[in-house]
């Protein structure tokens, strides 16, 4: 089923695109009467931050496993950010590790005034600068790179620059696996996960667009993720298995 007003939801391979993938925008507004103002409020909603806050509060109460979930969520993002400051992939991994440990130690001081990832990225950038200074290398100045910029840092350009041929190949394989798995999904699952992951819509909005109950949306997104995850599981390892 293709929702009314939806022009194109076909998935593309990010590595083949020169620019970061931008989700196709439906013309004339989304079906279901969502205005541009509504879309702005959707993009500004705090649910992701609230999930992080819950994890932070649990970690602050002594649940290390809650902090591990934050590590699993932000490890790749943090490393992508650090790749703009440090060139060597092994060093990036070390600095990211140190930043996570510093963040854990400083957790009692985190009051939730800013988003957890903003706070974590700031720690990451400061750790990277200190690391470079300790090695006698030139650390980037604040005009070159600022932690505030971290919030808007989403493209993979920096990452591509520092990729070794092996890691670039691995990255392409992962992207290819995801693309193939998404392409093989039934259309209603593909539409649901695309609206969620690329357009950032809530389940309620997706339910309006797809004209189905919210529970169905929840189930479709889960089934889509599970189908893709099943294809990725053979590539899953640990940092001890392979070092870049």
């Amino acid at each position: 089923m293709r929702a009314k007003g939806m022009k194109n939801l076909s998935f593309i391979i990010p590595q083949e695109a020169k620019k970061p993938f931008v989700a196709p925008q439906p013309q004339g507004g989304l079906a279901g009467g969502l205005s541009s103002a509504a879309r702005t409020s959707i993009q500004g909603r705090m649910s992701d931050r609230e999930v992080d806050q819950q994890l932070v509060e649990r970690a602050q109460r002594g649940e290390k496993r809650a902090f591990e979930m934050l590590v699993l969520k932000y490890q790749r993002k943090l490393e992508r950010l650090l790749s703009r400051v440090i060139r060597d992939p092994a060093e990036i991994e070390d600095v990211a590790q140190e930043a996570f440990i510093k963040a854990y130690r400083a957790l009692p001081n985190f009051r939730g005034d800013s988003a957890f990832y903003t706070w974590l990225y700031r720690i990451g950038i400061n750790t990277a600068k200190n690391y470079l200074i300790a090695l006698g290398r030139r650390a980037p100045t604040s005009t070159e790179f600022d932690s505030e910029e971290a919030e808007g840092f989403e493209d993979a350009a920096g990452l591509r620059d520092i990729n070794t041929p092996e890691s670039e190949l691995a990255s392409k394989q992962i992207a290819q696996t995801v693309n193939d798995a998404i392409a093989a999904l039934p259309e209603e699952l593909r539409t649901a996960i695309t609206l969620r992951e690329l357009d950032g819509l809530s389940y309620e909005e997706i339910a309006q667009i797809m004209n189905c109950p919210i529970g169905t949306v929840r189930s479709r997104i889960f089934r889509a993720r599970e189908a893709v995850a099943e294809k990725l599981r053979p590539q899953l390892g640990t940092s001890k298995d392979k070092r870049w």
Partner: protein
Amino acid sequence: MTQELSALMDGELEPHEAGRALLACGADEDQKRTWFLYHAIGEAMRGQAPRSLAMPADVFEKLSRQPTVLAPRRRVLEGRAVRVALAAAASVATVGVVGWIGTQGGAGPSALPTVAKSAGPAGSSIQPVASTTTLPASVPALTVQEYLVAHRQMPTPELYRPVTNRTPAPAR
């Protein structure tokens, strides 16, 4: 439970469901791997495919050697609860002020018009009622006038004159 994990990462769970899902995920290695993979899938779809799908075991190992942090719990009122509490407080304050004005404004004996003693012929039963309230005897009108003059807003030209040109005040 995995479906709850999927909804959790989208922020689509009620707080009590989220708490349950987080607890389950933290305790189960398979659930953690799923959490890791689901985030990686989203990133790959947005053109940020990771370089590897390696779980950060090194970080976990270092983390396990860290002393467990325990931050004092902060009681943070939810935004909505704060708004309701403020609205209730404002309502109570308004009712209180209006009630106080009501009791002070019309009913009290002090607000009644002053009855002036008649200077008329003795034995007359007619007593004129003054149309204005009278000032208390202890505050004569002349004193008020002096007060206003002393505290007038406009300074005298003397104050605008440079200090050096000012005429010294006569010695008393």
